[in-house]
């Protein structure tokens, strides 16, 4: 029953406040209720009323009624402090899962108005106080923690004020359709990665294993090795078969490939690839990315990094 009412409320709010990037608060959008302090004030007013009745004291009546009038008038003042504010979402910057996504917003109000102590943000995470007094437009950033990779749409933004007397709370919501891509948490699997990845480094650039030109090293014979790879000299020394390996030194390129990762787990692989993307980017290497469904040819630079990271972030999601 409770959840049904809650659902209904949510739906009602959604209908009333459709998704948008920019909203100017008006009487259709602002909700206002008395605060807890108003209850305290009401108690005080009742107490004063009893006092005035018992002592038949006109001035005590006057104080009592004045506070009552203040309680009412304050609602209008609180409403006025929110009405007319334009809240605009500038953008949401991407981040790695586990870090904070920052939402850049802009609050502004008509030039002749002043707004004080307006709180904007997510009550559970980050609320920022904004004053629109000296300047009529303020840009600020809100941080929202992220937990998992993928496309992230922040929950509705609350904008509220209790100014001036805190006897009423006026608030509104902005349901934004802005979204950001949350990259997987970069986490390199160090224990196996150097021996088991197919990519190893070489001073001259990226090695392409199982090449045919240059001598790369000697390893134990494997059944599918070609006879011309056999290292006869070693056989003479030890009596066991060894194969010569060859690599191709192409340009300094590197493939980061899903299928060559030696450990299971989608998220673990994505995290590892993510850390490698960052690593390559930091070393200014050319790199390509290959994951199921996506193949990005080797390249370099910020845009390329974003592309790769996005591909990792959205893996498994319908882009």
């Amino acid at each position, binding site marked *: 029953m409770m959840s049904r009412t809650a659902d209904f409320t949510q739906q009602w709010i959604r209908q009333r406040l459709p998704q948008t990037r920019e909203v100017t608060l008006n009487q259709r959008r602002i909700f206002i209720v008395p605060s807890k302090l108003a209850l305290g004030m009401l108690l005080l007013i009742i107490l004063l009323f009893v006092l005035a009745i*018992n002592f038949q004291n006109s*001035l005590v009546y006057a104080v009592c009624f004045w506070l009552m009038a203040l309680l009412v*008038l304050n609602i209008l003042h609180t409403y006025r402090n929110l009405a007319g504010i334009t809240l605009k979402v500038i953008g949401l910057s991407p981040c790695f899962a586990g870090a904070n996504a920052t939402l850049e917003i802009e609050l502004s109000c008509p030039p002749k108005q002043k707004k004080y102590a307006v709180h904007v943000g997510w009550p559970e995470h980050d609320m920022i106080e904004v004053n629109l007094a000296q300047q009529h437009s303020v840009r600020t950033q809100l941080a929202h923690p992220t937990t998992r990779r993928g496309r992230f749409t922040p929950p509705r933004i609350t904008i509220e004020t209790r100014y001036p007397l805190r006897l009423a709370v006026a608030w509104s919501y902005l349901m934004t359709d802005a979204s950001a891509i949350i990259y997987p948490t970069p986490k390199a699997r160090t224990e196996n990665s150097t021996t088991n990845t197919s990519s190893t480094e070489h001073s001259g650039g990226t090695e392409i294993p199982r090449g045919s030109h240059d001598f790369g090293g000697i390893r134990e014979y494997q059944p599918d090795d070609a006879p011309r790879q056999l290292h006869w000299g070693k056989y003479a020394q030890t009596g066991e078969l060894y194969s010569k390996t060859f690599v191709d030194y192409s340009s300094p390129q590197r493939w980061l490939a899903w299928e060559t990762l030696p450990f299971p787990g989608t998220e673990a692989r994505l995290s590892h690839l993510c850390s490698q993307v960052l690593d390559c980017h930091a070393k200014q290497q050319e790199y390509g990315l290959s994951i199921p469904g996506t193949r990005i040819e080797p390249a370099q630079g910020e845009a390329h990094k974003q592309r790769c990271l996005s591909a990792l972030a959205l893996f498994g999601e319908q882009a």
Partner: protein
Amino acid sequence: MNPAKAALSYTGTIWLLITQVLVMLPFVQYLPLWLMPVLAFTAIWRLRVVKGQSDRPGLPVKIVLMVLGIGGLTLSGLPFPSLDFMVAILLLGFAFKTLEADSQRDAIVVVLLGYFLLAVHFLYSQSILAGLYGVLTLVALTAALIGIHHPMNFMSSRQSTSHALRLSALMLLQCLPLMLLIFMFAPRLQPLFMLPLPSSQAKSGISDSMTPGDIASLSQSDALAFRVTFKNGKPPQNQLYWRGLTLNHFDGRRWKQFIDDYELRQLQQNFAHNYRWQPDNLDIRGPAVEYEAIYERSGQPWLFTLTPATEVYGDVLRGGDYRIMARTELQAPAMLKAVSYPESLRDRTLQPMVRRLALQLPLNTNPRSHSLAQQLRTQSRSEQDYIQRVLQRFRDQSFHYTLRPPMLGSTDTIDAFLFDSQRGFCAHYAGSFVFMMRAAGIPARVVTGYQGGEWNATGQYLSVHQFDAHAWTEVWLAESGWARIDPTTMVAPDRVEQGLEAAMRTEGSFLENQLFTPRKIEWLNRLRQQIDSVQYGWRRFVLGYDRDAQSEFFKNLLGELTIKKVAATLGGLMIALGLLWMLLLGLKPEHRSIAPEQRLYQRFCKRLAKKGLAREPGQTPGDFARLAAAKFPQHAAAILGFNGVYEEVCYGSEANHKPKGLLAQMKQHLQKL
């Protein structure tokens, strides 16, 4: 993150200190003196904490402070269930709470308590000054509410203070109309239960007994006793005998009401049963005097009226001696409306008990006075004649009216006055005259109250001060009942005609103990009268607006009262106020003016959407209508017809004046859908 639990900022603390000082200051004059250093001490400590010079008090310090405070209260002898005690506890709590407040929530509790104490102060004083001070404190408290919550760190502290103060004053001003509206309309209920009243004020004014020196000492005070407004003009000055109480029992030195000293409650019992008011014993004569009096706080139950008052409005008790008495001691100013017929005959038949009371004399005292009475009585033809002879003696012999009478010893005081000193104040003359009457078997009694008063021409009212206190007598004669006789007039006719100041001009003893009084400088005196008249107007308004005044006010305003009328008036005023507020705050309701044809078109779209065809944002009305007609062939005529008229209204040759006929056609088509 709950902002209410947020730490109190520096500005918030300063606000708290300001309110603490403002709220506590006016109580200085009413509460035990030792409380003030305690309150000042906590304020200074708090200030030092703010500046970082001291530490916040720890728990042991708090406990010691609390114990000291409560111990002090018990030792200071404030009676326990009294307002003073409650207020003292509240003030202590207020001070200590301020000292330890470190979150915004604590600070708010302090401010709310401040509002309460501000109102409590009005139980002690309702003067203009107290009212103005109250408004000032109200502004400061409300500003504190703003300042504590919104430190406005981007402003300098001076800016943020003035911002909070200005906003608070503005808001209070804006809600003043609503406050007045509620003040006028809110029902005035009868007290729900009795609460103890402020008790620390000493008693002042006329007391319940009289020794010769009492009234003389009262005449050194220029404090106000009461003010009176007359409805149909002021009676002559020498008729203004404001009668308070009658003193029947003389013990040789002192005049008292009865042989026993009664508590107020016993006295009230007495007046309610044995000695109660008997209106049928009154023979109303002469013109009526209608008036309204406001008595200052006296700590005593006596009210002073012109006798006999036949109609009295107010919660009072009436006695068999025609007195009017309040039911409780006056701890706050009280108002009374009365109609008196001063020329009426009182008690044509005298109750035996009253006669007995009015003939009592102490045994074996004042032999010279007794023999004088016998001698004069045998010489007189009648009781009337005897009275004249006794009065004549005051005039003929060298009696003096003086505020500096000599001591009379402890026995035979009447003899000492009548034969030896012959110098005295009104109490001497009244006392000795009653003695002479009773010695000759004529019922008589001493009456105390005030005589005369100062006419304030600016405000058209009479102020009666303590120095107008007076004692006179009443003598009972068979043909006239109780008649007032003032023996003082035999010696000092000026006292009654022009007041005490004139009577004492030669002696120079009027208010002689006061080094400076504006009464003695003419222009200052005039200014004093003007200020006094403003204060009286305030007091009449503030005290006067009770249940009766409320219903009378509405009757004058609305004629016969009906619920409908009151509701309509109230509703109208509320709406007007709402609009006024909108205007003041610059809140205009948004007019979403939609042309009628657009509204109809929206309904058209909504109806089709319900049937399953929603209009795409970019679709032209024509396209949409054709699509709809194709989808719902049974409604095609209505759809196309509606659209045709709609386009005609919007884009046709007559689009500028939107003919009503076309709109009606649109409606018809819409109904068919």
